């Protein structure tokens, strides 16, 4: 599969990455290699195979609807952010 420069730029935009020109070229090469490797799976005929959504054969893992006390307090969590104000996380203006 061919990886174009636009593909890399599109992925970078989705991931909120800023890339230099050199990085774009390098990443393109890397991705080509990765996709080629994974593409080996295309050789298998999977027409009759159910897709695997998870590797553990579990289902219906539910919990009770009961409030449990939380060990991590608000201030501990807020401390993890770069900046906070009025018990809220402060971020550059988005809209």
């Amino acid at each position, binding site marked *: 599969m061919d990886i174009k420069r636009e593909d890399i730029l599109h992925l970078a935009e989705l991931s909120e990455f800023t890339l230099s020109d050199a990085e774009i070229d390098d990443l393109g090469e890397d991705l080509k290699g990765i996709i080629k490797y994974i593409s080996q799976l295309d050789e298998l005929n999977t027409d009759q195979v159910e897709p695997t*959504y998870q590797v553990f054969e579990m289902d219906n893992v*539910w919990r009770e609807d009961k409030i449990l006390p939380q060990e991590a307090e*608000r201030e501990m*969590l807020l401390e993890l952010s770069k900046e906070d104000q009025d018990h*809220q996380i402060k*971020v550059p203006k988005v*809209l």
Partner: protein
Amino acid sequence: MKYLPTIGIECHVQLCTKTKLFSEVDNDARGKEPNSCVSPIDYALPGMLPRLNGEAIRFAILAGRAMNCKINLHSRFDRKHYFYPDSPKGYQITQFYQPIIGAGYVELPSGTKIRIEHAHLEGDAGKLTHFDTYSLVDFNRVDTPLIEIVSMPDIHSAKDAHDYCKELWRLMCHAGVTYGDLYNGNMRFDVNISLAPEGSKELGTRAEVKNLNSFRSVERATSYEIKRQSKLLDQGKKVVQETRGWSDAEGKTTGQRSKEEAKDYRYMPEPDLPPINLSKEFVETESAKLPLMPSDYRSAFSDAVKPDTLEILLDYPQLMQKLGEIASPSHLGHTSLRSSVPRGFQGRSAKLMVLDGMASTISLISNLFTSVLLAEEKSAEYLNDLPSAKDLIELAEMNEKKELSSTATKEVFLKLFDPQMKGRGTKNIAKELGLIQENDLGALEKIVDVVLAKPETQKAQNDFKAGEEKVIGFLVGQVMKESHGKANPGAVQKILRDRLSK
């Protein structure tokens, strides 16, 4: 040129489970401080894993059944990726490929049926507050369970768009799965509108108006879009496919600068949540818990309650449940553990019927609900603690037997809600207030005779005998005064006429 609007609506309903969809944290953040209902799971700290709330599955079944939807026995979750400060995970956990709720329909009061394409479970995002140079993020709402209901494009007018949203709200409130507080965003609507020349087989280009939070704004925004798009098409211009915002103050929609072309959510199966596989028995057991729905009340009460009154009362599930109890005691309602969410566990298994002789009681009580209770300032408070069906039935009986005048009936009715009075029984309250009308003919005749013997009534008596009809009112008034207002005026008038014609 005439165009036919085609409208599809997506509705997000916040479920009133006790805890969030994926963590054991309080899901009711009303009146609580920002970021006080948040756990490391909601915060998406590295290594945190979601733990699915079983109650959300049960609520989804109820919501689905309320919309006559098929419940899918196999469903699972997917990740929808996007970067935005309201989503700490960097993706939303939703059901893209296999939703829990399948196809169904909602019937509007007008009888129009709007098909439901599907509905799915997902987590809500956090709340952003924007300031001039920065935004603040509150994660209290992160992963509040949501059901997103997707309609088919079956709606063709602004009024039907309004009615559909309102009926969805009623269905969800009657099912008891949401607090239904629109002001606080418990239900939000995205409306897709396109226009095509009448008779055309192809649909036009659609615009989407997002995040409407009232039925009125849905109706107004839809009307506005129909006008705006008609004008563009009449001028030979094209409608741009885009997301538009609605300004309630300006009464118009405006295009939002958006990176539509960058929209690429890269859905993938959520590896941290095993699939949901329901047994038929489980779905049947849970579906049976669905309380009576608006359609049940409409068919049972069509004779006893005027359509206008019924449509008002249907906005209040508590009042409808009470009327259901009065209509037939087999529908005794139960209040759920969650204080403000009534849920009748009797469910729809038994068809609601108005028992013989109860129609006039239902009619009287429903009128008292609309004209007296809902007019009260404290009605919201009263709704959560209604008088017993027994007290209300007794009130209707006393009114019917003319033991209570219509004014006295209203007065006693209100006292049934009074914390000081309630629980004492209707008859006792009426007695204490001295409101029971004197219907005992013997006793009334004595009072009439006392009044007729008074010198000040002689002139009126003579006038009446001389043919002056209207003085009867004065005489009835005198008797009422003598009885301290307890006499039944109709009976008094009858006795007076009888006496004076002799």
